[in-house]
């Protein structure tokens, strides 16, 4: 019996653990970049990284640090700043965390969504949230932080854009662009596309650019150019082969040069170009480009590299003439990059 008591005592000694230390929230300055680290699906290891453009300092896991050690969740998909609040879409945690942009502390969260993907804003009291599984579009009030209503969409919706009083959404499951009246939330038109339309941008002439990945069965990628005044397709630019991929889209600050992520790097083309570019503006090499953003005023390009999807990734910062200005480690699977203002 004495032996048993020793046994248990020893185990207790080696099983002691210290309490987590808590820190005061780290404040943000005026030139802050937030990197959304998606993390692995179903691993719960998403995080936010802060990057100071001026002194190039980096703060990892800023949400966890500034919110009493609480992790942000599973798969940080996208984020958008609305006023003084940052709305962070945490896809697999079914929520939108609403953060104070001054220190990224949580104000509240819109919970009980299904699988939210992106937010686009109509005005201070109306924004749309797309969803992967819900078969609906959420309409939220960004001021009251509430879901106001839902709109039947029957399928997976990805990126959206608003112009000319109309909402353009990429309807992945039906391979269509759906156009809604923002006032009435009724469907005005549906336009067929190539397989899997996912990203959309509106250029300086209010032309909508939509990229289609080509689907999972080896279809060709394509870029649709849509006139938003007449809602007619102006042109379709198709990849030369199924290996030519067109993914995420971004426009520069003057909205006259379109950038997209291809299978071997970051491509760029003038919005008046009639053909797709042949070679990337920034080659990928051994890196694994996963997302990118262009600074709305400086035109600096930030590209994220997921490396092997299992370690902390890297973000490369280039000026517009693609000279690398910095590279810094971030979190696991860095995706979108947000410039706070």
């Amino acid at each position: 019996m004495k032996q048993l008591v020793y046994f248990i005592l020893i185990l207790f000694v080696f099983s002691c653990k210290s309490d987590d230390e808590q820190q005061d929230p780290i404040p943000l300055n005026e030139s802050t970049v937030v990197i959304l680290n998606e993390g692995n699906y179903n691993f719960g290891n998403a995080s936010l990284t802060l990057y100071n453009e001026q002194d190039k300092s980096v703060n990892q896991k800023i949400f966890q640090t500034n919110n009493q050690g609480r992790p942000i969740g599973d798969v940080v998909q996208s984020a958008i700043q609305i006023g003084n609040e940052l709305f962070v879409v945490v896809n697999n945690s079914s929520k939108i965390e609403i953060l104070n942009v001054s220190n990224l502390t949580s104000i509240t969260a819109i919970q009980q969504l299904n699988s939210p993907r992106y937010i686009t804003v109509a005005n201070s009291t109306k924004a749309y949230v797309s969803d992967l599984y819900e078969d609906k579009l959420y309409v939220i009030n960004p001021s009251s932080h509430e879901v106001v209503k839902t709109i039947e969409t029957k399928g997976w919706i990805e990126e959206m854009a608003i112009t000319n009083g109309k909402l353009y959404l990429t309807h992945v499951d039906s391979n269509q662009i759906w156009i809604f009246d923002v006032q009435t939330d009724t469907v005005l038109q549906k336009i067929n596309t190539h397989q899997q339309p996912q990203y959309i941008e509106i250029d300086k002439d209010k032309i909508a650019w939509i990229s289609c990945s080509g689907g999972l069965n080896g279809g060709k990628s394509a870029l649709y150019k849509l006139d938003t005044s007449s809602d007619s397709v102006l042109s379709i630019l198709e990849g030369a082969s199924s290996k030519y991929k067109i993914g995420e889209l971004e426009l520069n600050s003057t909205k006259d040069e379109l950038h997209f992520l291809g299978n071997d790097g970051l491509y760029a083309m003038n919005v008046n170009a009639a053909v797709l570019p042949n070679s990337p503006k920034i080659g990928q090499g051994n890196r694994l480009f996963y997302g990118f953003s262009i600074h709305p005023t400086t035109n600096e390009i930030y590209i994220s590299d997921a490396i092997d999807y299992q370690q902390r990734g890297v973000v490369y910062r280039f000026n517009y003439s693609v000279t690398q200005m910095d590279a810094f480690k971030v979190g696991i699977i860095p995706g979108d990059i947000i410039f706070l203002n």
Partner: protein
Amino acid sequence: MRILGTILFLAMASNLLSQNTISDTVRINSVTVNGHSKTRNQQTLDSSILGNPQHLNLGDLLSKKSHLFIKSYGIGSLATVSLRGSGTAHTQVNWNGISLNSSMNGSSDLALFPLFFMDQVGVNYGLNSLADGTGGIGGAVNISTLPEFGKQLNLFSSYLHGSFGQQQLNVKIKGGGEKFQSITKIIYNQADNDFEYREFTTEGFPNNKVSNARFLQKGVMQKFFFKLPKNQLFEASLWFFNSVRNLPPLITLRDNKELQEDVALKSLVKYSKYFKNSTLKVTSAFLSDELNYQNERAGIATSALTNSFRTRLDYEFNFKKIDVHTQAKYDHSNASADGLVTAVNQNRAEFFLKTEQLITKDFKTSLSLRSLHVVQAESYLLPQVRLDYQVQGLNLHLYALAGKNVKYPSLNDLYYVPSGNVNLKAEESESAELGAIYERGFANNKALFTSSATLFYNNIANYIQWEPTAFGFWRPSNLNSVETMGSELFIELSQVKGKIKKQLNATYSYTASKNYEKQHEFDESSGKQLIYIPEHKGNVSLNMEIDNISFAMNYQFIGIRFISSDNEELLPSYSLLDASVCKNLKWRDKSIISLSAGVKNILDVEYQAIEWRPMPNRNYFIKISYQFNK
């Protein structure tokens, strides 16, 4: 500090009982050089350990009693295995010599193997798994059902009630005579699994209950053994198992309301003929595995069906003092699933030749060659050499072995839509192992000390890894060349003294499993430990039997596990202590009633085996069983 503590503890715990102890239940790396006995590197766990209610299923047992690391997603949830730092699909699970690994994903979920169906469980480490087939780069787990001839009728029934709504009912009916045996086993197992955990995603970390974690398992096994004239034995087994598991969500996400149903039908026939100097065995099996998955939140419902016909022929004989083992295997698998465009087939054959020869009375050599032929694909030749030496007068056995193994890609690796990769190469390993085994009896052999130490090295080329892509799906590729190396230690002390039996055993393994490829200057994974493979793992078990009372205690230590390939993120180590006591009562000569009670996770450790998946704190069970023998 924890590691140091554990090593210290192992040493102290060993000393506690070094004065006395025995038992014949666990043997590891027992090598016999003399005579014509087989050489083996196997850890064997028999029914006395399998029957302990502390162990929920095969994964739970092996986690506590062997060098295997089990990556468990929770009680009754998916339990995958890693042996010697290798991947999930690198451990073969064999049932009476027939592989049970899924043709679809190449691996086995050990939570779906009820211990009540097994009479013996063995682990063949590393190259030793090649005796039964390719693919076990880490090793193989062998589960056996054994005959027991003799005129008898044996009825057994048990009921276990545990925390979190666990209920387990087992029934066994065994009968027959000297030439025929019939064994029927039935199991029913369910649990709500609604244990409490701290909600780390909510401010203040309030307590919450795990949701959507209920499981229900039902199964039946029927075995027939026929002893035929002229030293022939025929056996037929049927194994049906149905498991319905709700899959609990991560702490960090909303309940997906996921559900997985597995339906397995395994049938096996085996014929053995024992000649004067040779043995012939023919084993054939038909395996059918159906998996249905539902995700209510995503509106997903998928199913997959795999049918496999697997057969092997073994002929062993002695030729001019050389033991020869020949083997031929054929495997046909057919899979249809929502993730496959059409049903896919894979046919493969293996041939094996092994010779063992005593060079002197202390020195033995063993040479073997196995070939794998995948129809309309590649062929592989896998040589192996082994040397055994017994140091006379010291009860010390030394051995060394080296050889190659191969793991051919699974059907999912090759054909899964949209990302299967038909250009994948097979994973090929080159391995070497050195070992020493020491055994010594004391007190007229009523006490026994056994110990072993092993060093191993393994290089796996064309390591297959599934990775997400920027275009929304996962894809397998031959990414890394991975090196694993380490050591395994085992100590056992056992003693019988009057009516008192004691046994103490301890295992410790050190595993370094590393990738040495570097993508570019920012890739910090090179030379780092692979994720979810602990460098340090240890177990200590103590079993005591005094008259009709038995006591069992098991301590388990799992070291830190890195969860990012640059080793910047990790899960802390944890220690678990389980204990149980059992009292046997005789009733009317032919009946025995057993009462058991136990506590798991006595130290009430809060831990996560997988990040953000809570595991149960301290919990309890009681069990009553009735046995009738005639």
